[in-house]
């Protein structure tokens, strides 16, 4: 049933790319944030196809539930002017458009030429994840070999929290 998985992946990938284009081309900033939400969900489904279901949950909980709320709030708190991506825009930004198209083809060609033959050597974790869940292995690794990751993340997020609170609070409120 390989073709079924492939077809699903291609469908989800195309939708994800369309939604990512939507975040850039839409008129209103709020809509851009909504498109970002759909992009993030699409990326989360990609993780599921790559055998990493735990990150799918984390991606939707943290990104779609946490970070996106920040985006929506800040869009509403900082005025949002209209923006148009039309022919005039394309004429003004012809260099940028060319640069990003070139970047896409260069990146794809580079990565495929270097890593395209990896499937021959085997995609171990994907195959393992299809037969048994790897969430346990991942958490065991997180608490044994990579036991410095979570404390570092704690310090990082705590400092980010304090910093953003300090930035947003007005002087007279302190």
């Amino acid at each position: 049933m390989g073709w079924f998985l492939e077809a699903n992946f291609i469908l989800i990938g195309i939708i994800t790319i369309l939604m990512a284009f939507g975040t850039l081309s839409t008129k209103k900033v709020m809509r851009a944030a909504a498109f970002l939400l759909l992009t993030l969900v699409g990326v989360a489904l990609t993780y599921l196809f790559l055998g990493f279901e735990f990150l799918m949950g984390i991606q939707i909980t943290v990104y779609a539930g946490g970070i996106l709320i920040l985006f929506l709030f800040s869009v509403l708190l900082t005025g949002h002017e209209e923006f148009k991506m039309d022919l005039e825009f394309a004429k003004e930004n012809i260099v940028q458009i060319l640069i990003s198209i070139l970047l896409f083809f260069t990146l794809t060609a580079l990565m495929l030429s270097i890593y395209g033959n990896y499937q021959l050597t085997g995609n171990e974790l994907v195959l393992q994840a299809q037969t048994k869940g790897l969430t346990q292995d991942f958490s065991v690794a997180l608490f044994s070999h990579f036991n410095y990751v979570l404390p570092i993340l704690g310090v990082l997020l705590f400092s980010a929290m304090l910093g953003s609170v300090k930035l947003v609070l007005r002087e007279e409120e302190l």
Partner: protein
Amino acid sequence: MTAIPIEYPLILSSALFSLGVFGVITQKNAVRILIAIELIINAANINFVTFASYNPNADISGWVFALFIIAVAAGEAAIGLAIFINVFRNFGEINVKHLFTLREV
């Protein structure tokens, strides 16, 4: 049993990456630039997960890195948006074309 070929996630990630770069260099609203940066981060994340999953040695350090990146992105978004809210309070807009108080026009 088969899994999807490695080309598909790589093409997806490079498409997301170039769309993100396109957004960063063309958008003028600061929040939209941050949204484009999120796209870039997600593209990088897809690559990390892909290379970890397709590693013949079944090494999951790439997955740990992906988790790390999500947390860093959360911190980055919080700080960046706090800065933009402050900018909006001081200047009344967050169009990056008009924010040049530290340089001469």
